[in-house]
């Protein structure tokens, strides 16, 4: 379940309208933060994911 869906189902279970509004506002901020975060991570992601994952081999561990 995504954050948005979760907050929706949580909203439906609430009976005080002002609390519902608050929760929704907070979760929109969360989603924006997540979008921002993904954009930032795109910038630093290892360039060739296939190559990176393929070459990541760690033998001889405990």
């Amino acid at each position, binding site marked *: 379940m*995504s*954050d948005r869906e*979760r907050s929706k189902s*949580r909203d439906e279970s609430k009976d005080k309208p002002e609390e519902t509004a608050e929760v929704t506002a907070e979760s929109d901020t969360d989603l924006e*933060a*997540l*979008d921002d*975060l*993904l954009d*930032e*991570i795109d910038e*630093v*992601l*290892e360039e060739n*994911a*296939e190559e*990176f*994952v*393929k*070459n*990541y*081999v*760690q*033998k*001889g*561990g*405990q």
Partner: protein
Amino acid sequence: MAIHKVLGTETEYGIVVRGDPGFNPAVASSLVVNSYPGTRVKVQWSYEEESPGRDARGFGHDTYGLIDAEGAVVNSVLANGARLYVDHAHPEYSSPESYDPLEAVLYDKAGERVMHKAAVVASETSGRRVSLYKNNSDGKGNSYGAHENYLLSRETPFGDVIRYAIPFMVTRQIFTGAGKVGKENDRPDVDFQITQRADFFEEQVGLETTLKRPIINTRDEPHGDPAQYRRLHVIIGDANLSEVQMFLKLGTTALMLAALEDGAIPDPLDLSDPVEACWQVSHDLSLRRPIQLDGGGSATALELQARYLEWFAKYVEKELDEPVWNQLIEEWERTLSLLETEPMQLADTLDWVAKKRLFEGYVARDGLEWSNTKLRALDLQYHDVDPEKGLYNRLVARGAMRTLYTDQQVEDAVSTPPQRTRAYFRGRCVSEFAGSLVAANWDSLVFDVGGSHLKRVPMMEPLKGDAERVGALLDEAEDAADLLRRLEG
């Protein structure tokens, strides 16, 4: 009364040399350990052993012009009392003995900093980017450890430790896991699971650490007076990046062991099949899957952890009413309660939840399948110790993870030992008498101060050698020979 739970961690880091897929991991690990630029003494570890450094022999492939295979130095003691060395194919950092779980978190984090500093220099000297990862699996069936060590009383029957610790270790995974895309080791398919390590555990009890890994490892090497102490060597945990999560992992486990020694665990909570339960708990993102209990009936990992919490909150109130343990109980309560109601709210404290939020974001935004290689790359990169590349570190920089220590505190812990354990004596000797220190182990230091014999200083008591006992003596000593005279006098 339970003995004081002195504790520490040992972490094998994953290693990659860019642009050289055929790199030899033992050589690269030696390069990293040799490159560490901070204060340290390259020593022979364990005076009695023949020559532990010989592990680095015969790895001739490409030594980046740096390592003489014969003379490779793969062991060192740092100014914070830690050990930095090569364990077969991985660079490893063993934290100094810490006084309590909060301090143990600090010194574990200092290890990430040590590794990063070493990787930077290793990259410069080799002309290739050397990256280090604080994780436990390569996603291809190879695992490497993040072990925890707790001081136990020799009086506690080991059979009791096994019986009481197994259900605790299996169920604590819900808040100790670092998260992983996919499964390994022939376990059933899964998109994402709570832990890195669970798939690899195949026995309840045993001496092995590299194959047929047991939930309880029986290595009996107390690193202290064997008549009084044991050391529980826990191999089932994940390496954590999150400080709060590490505090929970180390704190609840130390508390469980203290309660066990004090006979304060009312029920062992025996599981029918702990080995199966181990990976099943890790694979169950709903946190609702019942575990069969040996005496009949079943309970979820969360329910069993709630029982421990209830017992140990009372135990702390009665026996351990100190700020660190009260903070632990509060954090534990909050964590279990959110795992029950809104687990995603723990994205700022639990590595597995932070990853899940991130990966779900990618799945939603880019329409990725969970089997997409990009998610595996993200999974690995979460653990990169580089502050720029590591995704956990990026989350911290954005204020998206709750931390317990400032950057400066972690930096200070790289060069300053804990004050209340014997690591204090070891660390200060590294800082001040490096030229005379020839060998070290957890429970002794060996000095060469001229003369026909080396001088050995035993440290069989983990809580002695602390600042209060030897601080003034170290301040006053003019050199190592003077220090030894004062110790004898």
